[in-house]
């Protein structure tokens, strides 16, 4: 067996084992470089997985050689591979500028430990998407969550409210994770197995009530991690006060992975792509999603801080993903997946740009952005591209996302949902235009000289910005992958 045959487990183990080593390093510079190298290697491994599952095959890897369903199985289909690519590529992109970005906020002595936490977070998120064992999901969920609390708290160097934000998230996150483990308990009790595929086989045969209870607990726990209303309260503060680089990483991955879990559980464990236990996606998700779309956008309009504005925008976009999922069927899942990837690219690009701005100017408050279009034109361009993506201007990924959801809704006769989505994009115009006016029209107190972002931010900003446009101009390939995943999930559901 070659090294690449162990890719399913290496993609998790690599960051997991290198994290403590990096934590022990003395030089922050070496630690930073090492972090990027590990993340980049991880991305390469994830890409290998993607290449191997593109034709629809499923990789099954038995940990320690113990065959499933007794042993823990890592089960990678195209969906898992795509998600693993998402987490590792995001980590690599962020690791590129993380050392420079957090330098003003974290003392050099603490930085290696921060990088270690970053890699642990990556390990946890990637583990969640590649494992086929339900309890393993919980373990990795907790690993990534704990690392996230630490990462968010690192923002205290710039703003001490990061500490309370991290604490709030800890309490809520721990409750949510415990709900997940309670749900797992009930499912285990009625079937005797923790392997997700095996659960899918056995669950319909088992007692109904315990299964329903377990499903409900699981759903609520995941809803909290997905920041589904009304369990979204942790997200705005966490995104606002965390270091901008950390926010970039979280915005691209954390809630997306939780959404992936919801889809995976519905299909694999409960056997129906449209519901978890008695919680029917079609009844529950569209209303919640529409409320998130409208309320999230509305709250973004009144935010005084750019990161906070983008955080509420993320809530709105998550609502859109939930609406897509709630439309049901293969078309709904495909639309949700396209939305997921597109939003990760758009938001990642915007937060990376904000990281560059904050690093140079020291603040992300809206009133401190005056004069940005003249003083930091490179940053301004990419902020605009991202903003157009959030509105859903054609030629950006955001338009493709919105078009798919609206068309799917029309196809299924759900005109009210389509109308709701279209109306909510009006509110997004308002908050994006606030950014435009703050950067381009507002007069700065004293005109500054031209001093653009630190060069290290250029590559991630450009990559994600170009990605926003590329996914908007040729959205076919991504849609093709998403459709294939959706077909496999709904056609092969047991």
């Amino acid at each position, binding site marked *: 067996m070659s090294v690449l045959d162990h890719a399913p487990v290496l993609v998790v183990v690599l960051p997991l084992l290198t994290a403590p080593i990096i934590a022990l390093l003395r030089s922050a510079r070496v630690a930073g470089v090492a972090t990027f190298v590990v993340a980049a290697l991880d991305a390469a491994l994830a890409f290998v997985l993607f290449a191997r599952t593109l034709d629809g095959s499923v990789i099954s890897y038995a940990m320690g050689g113990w065959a499933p369903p007794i042993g823990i199985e890592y089960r990678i289909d195209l969906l898992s591979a795509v998600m693993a690519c998402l987490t590792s590529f995001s980590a690599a992109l962020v690791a590129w500028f993380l050392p420079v970005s957090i330098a003003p906020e974290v003392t050099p002595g603490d930085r290696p430990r921060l990088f270690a936490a970053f890699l642990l977070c990556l390990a946890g998120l990637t583990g969640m998407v590649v494992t086929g064992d339900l309890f393993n999901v919980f373990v990795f969920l907790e690993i990534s969550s*704990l690392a996230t609390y630490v990462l968010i708290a690192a923002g205290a160097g*710039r703003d*001490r409210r990061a500490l*309370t934000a991290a604490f709030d998230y800890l309490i809520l996150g721990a409750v949510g994770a415990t709900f997940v483990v309670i749900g797992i*308990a009930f499912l285990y009790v009625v079937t005797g197995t923790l392997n997700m595929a095996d659960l899918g086989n056995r669950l319909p045969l088992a007692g109904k009530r315990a299964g329903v209870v377990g499903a409900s607990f699981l759903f609520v726990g995941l809803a909290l991690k997905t920041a589904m209303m009304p369990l979204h309260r942790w997200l705005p503060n966490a995104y606002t006060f965390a270091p901008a680089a950390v926010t970039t990483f979280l915005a691209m991955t954390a809630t997306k992975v939780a959404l992936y879990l919801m889809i995976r559980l519905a299909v694999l464990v409960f056997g129906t792509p449209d519901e978890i236990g008695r919680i029917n996606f079609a009844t529950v998700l569209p209303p919640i999603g529409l409320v998130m779309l409208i309320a999230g956008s509305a709250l973004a309009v009144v935010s005084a801080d750019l990161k906070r504005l983008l955080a509420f925008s993320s809530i709105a976009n998550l609502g859109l993903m939930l609406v897509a999922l709630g439309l049901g069927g293969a078309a709904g899942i495909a639309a949700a997946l396209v939305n997921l990837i597109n939003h990760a690219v758009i938001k990642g690009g915007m937060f990376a740009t904000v990281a560059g701005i904050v690093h140079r100017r020291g603040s992300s408050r809206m009133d401190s952005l005056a004069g940005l279009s003249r003083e930091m034109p490179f940053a301004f361009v990419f902020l605009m591209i991202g903003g157009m993506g959030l509105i859903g201007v054609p030629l950006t990924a955001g338009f493709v996302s919105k078009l798919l959801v609206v068309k799917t809704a029309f196809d299924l006769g759900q005109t009210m949902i389509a109308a709701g989505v279209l109306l909510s994009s009006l509110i997004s115009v308002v908050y994006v235009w606030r950014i435009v006016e703050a950067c381009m029209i507002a007069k700065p107190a004293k005109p500054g000289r031209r001093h653009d972002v630190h060069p290290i931010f250029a590559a991630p900003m450009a990559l994600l910005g170009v990605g926003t446009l590329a996914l908007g101009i040729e959205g076919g390939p991504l849609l093709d992958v998403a459709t294939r995943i959706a077909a496999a999930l709904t056609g092969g559901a047991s």
Partner: protein
Amino acid sequence: MKDLVGLFPYWAVALLMMTGLYIVIAQGNLVKKLIGLGIFQVSVFVLYIAMGVVSGGTPPILETGFVTYSNPLPSVLILTAIVVGVATLAVGLALAVRIRESFGTVEEDELLPLTEPEAPADAEPHA
């Protein structure tokens, strides 16, 4: 009556779970919240272990005379969950210490006016 006695562990689970959640929500002191979280998590441990017990069962020992085994797997799962709980508690307490250093208090009602989200930034005194 049989349900009350026979399902006693599950009643304990429910009690602990609700108590823990209540403390998390109702208590304003951050350390007390963490205690409540701990109680909540303990209830889950009891749930798992109670599920695994088989009446008249023994640990799985491969010897003559040991026929009925209690399920060992939940105990293993709980070990993992306990470790996770301990780690969460540790991070939580560390955060509480930092909050105390930075804000001077760990009471939620005193913290709320100091952590108004829309207000301008306020770095740590000892950053």
